[in-house]
């Protein structure tokens, strides 16, 4: 249609009275131009647009992703984030003994936490973190309550906190930015990610967040069972029944199941660990509601066998200890969550055989593909 109009105008200009035509047609031409400039921008040369990164929703998973509007996923952004995630210079230090990246503690083989080798992880200064680590897994579905107490609203915000936290990077945005800017090869990665050579601390945080949002686990044995591809063993099935029945272990109200394959509600519960609440960084710290004292997030149970120690303070080394706790050692307080209805008996009172079945089921949430996915691993080359 546009070519047709231009063609007509050209032909008219070829005539004897071309000047008059031009005078009469000028406002019309202007209007046509306006109509296209207001509704159609195709006339202008298109600027470089990073390739969008599409997240495929696995079967049964939520369709709503928590991706901030100001940080859309791009292929280049994810790749930049992955490179930064594993780059030891990210903490703004250059001495070989003091380099630290996200991957120093968030290790893929432990579902992107540190495992039992360091119950309380510590950063560059050796000071322990307030809480045990949480794995980085399926965080693109976290509704905006990150950390054990949900006090962090976005992954981007978390990254910025890590940089300055004396128990983690103990660095500063200026030092980190200065270091990354000084590495020439990063400019191209930032262009691919954000269509701009400009490197800022916000973009560093955004790229890291984009990479973390790709860390999706959805191919465990249980996922395959949900999709009808495999059957669970009799022991695993008995464990699944215990997991999802109130008269059994009743794990599902907080930890999900067939209807919630994230295996967490991402909500906060006082699960009966203590009679006195001394940790200043529980859910109460965030909400100010006295009923939230001693409450912490119900963690995802995906790959849980690789993410010990357990609970916010890492008090349990093994899954067996955790099951024993829920079975016999719950403590009733005014803050106990009502969903802990077995509290009056001290717990769910599982027999040894039932405990074994329950653990067998929980281990169907092991996703080895996630633990070895090369897209989540360290790049072979750094800028």
């Amino acid at each position, binding site marked *: 249609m546009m070519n047709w109009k231009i063609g007509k105008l050209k032909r008219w200009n070829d005539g004897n009275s071309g000047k*008059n035509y031009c005078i009469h047609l000028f406002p019309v031409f202007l209007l046509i131009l306006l109509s296209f400039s207001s509704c159609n921008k195709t006339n202008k040369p298109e600027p470089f647009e990073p390739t969008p990164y599409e997240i495929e929703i696995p079967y049964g998973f939520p369709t709503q992703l928590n991706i901030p509007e100001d940080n859309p996923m791009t292929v280049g952004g994810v790749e930049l984030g992955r490179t930064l995630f594993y780059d030891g210079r990210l903490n703004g230090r250059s001495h070989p003994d003091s380099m630290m990246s996200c991957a120093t503690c968030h290790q893929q083989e432990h579902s992107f936490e540190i495992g039992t080798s360091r119950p309380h992880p510590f950063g560059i200064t050796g000071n322990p973190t307030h809480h045990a680590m949480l794995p980085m897994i399926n965080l693109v579905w976290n509704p905006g309550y990150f950390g054990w107490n949900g006090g962090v609203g976005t992954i981007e915000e978390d990254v910025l906190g890590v940089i300055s936290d004396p128990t983690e990077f103990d660095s500063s945005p200026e030092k980190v930015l200065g270091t990354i800017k000084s590495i020439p090869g990063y400019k191209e990665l930032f262009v691919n990610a954000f269509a701009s050579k400009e490197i800022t601390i916000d973009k560093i945080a955004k790229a890291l967040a984009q990479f973390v949002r790709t860390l999706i686990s959805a191919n465990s044995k249980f996922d395959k069972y949900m999709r009808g591809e495999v059957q669970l063993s009799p022991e695993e099935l008995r464990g699944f*029944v215990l997991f999802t029945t109130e008269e059994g272990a009743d794990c599902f109200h907080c930890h999900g199941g067939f*209807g*919630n394959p994230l295996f967490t509600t991402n909500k906060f519960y006082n699960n009966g660990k203590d009679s006195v609440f001394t940790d200043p960084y529980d859910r109460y710290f965030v909400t100010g509601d006295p009923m939230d004292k001693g409450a912490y997030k119900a963690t995802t149970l995906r790959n849980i066998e690789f993410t010990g120690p357990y609970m916010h303070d890492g008090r349990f080394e093994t899954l067996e200890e955790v099951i024993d706790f829920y079975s016999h050692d719950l403590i009733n307080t005014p803050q106990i969550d009502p969903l802990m*209805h077995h*509290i009056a008996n001290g717990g769910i009172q599982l027999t040894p055989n039932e405990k074994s079945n329950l653990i067998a089921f929980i281990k169907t949430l092991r996703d080895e593909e996630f633990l070895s996915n090369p897209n989540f691993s360290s790049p072979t080359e750094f800028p």
Partner: protein
Amino acid sequence: MGHNSCNILSSAILVFTLFILISSCDKSDPPSETEPGKIIFHFTHFNDGENLEYDTMKYTNAAGNNYLVNEIQYFISDVKLHNSDGGVKLIDEWNDIYYVDTDIESTQSWQVYDPIEPGNYEKISFTFGISEEKNQSLMFLNPPERDMFWPEFLGGGYHYMKLNGKWFAEDEVVKPFNFHLGIGQVYSGGVIEPDSITGFIQNYFEVELPASSFSISEGEIINFEIRMNVKNWFNNPHVYDHDEWGGDIMQKQDAMKLGCDNGQEEVFSIHELLLISPPGK
């Protein structure tokens, strides 16, 4: 001749261009001749005549249990307006299951999308929970509705309601109760094990809101309050005793039956709120 034809041509192009501008940039529909009515439902939660207070052990049911309420989450569905000539209008048929959560304010107000034809209506009814036909597993993939899922072994689909609280038990211990309603199970031999399940019982029920006749005129916006009187889940016609049923009832059909019977009697009521709502809100 050439000049005139130019004028005609330029006028035609001008008109055509204006048409393109208007048709491409302005998609608004022409105003309708008659303006229908609108309904907004507000869900509130009471204990008898008082607004419900949460996490306070201040209530007593007919069984003499002192109790507190921590949170309530539930579905109502198939809300119907029954008009005076026997016709029934199903509200928002394309989105006919509505979730209410006492912890999420946005769920406590439902602005019905459907226009309401002006006229007289005899009553309003709804299904408490979700009908068997519609209560399908994995139909809600996103929170908060997702977290209402009812385990497959126990019948699948979704809880009709979670009413969580605590009561002061006869052994003088404060214990949690999960008054959860949903699909019941039939167990053979009285053995409460999933292996013993021989059938399922659909416990959803219809609520006909008492004194719910109303008239709506052109362009009128009516704010209705649908009020849940929590106490009556435990009082009438059956006395529900937490000491008898304990903290969990998802696998106790007899307890859920009492709750569902009570739910049909004096739990829900409707009140017209005298709010001034600007048009379009």
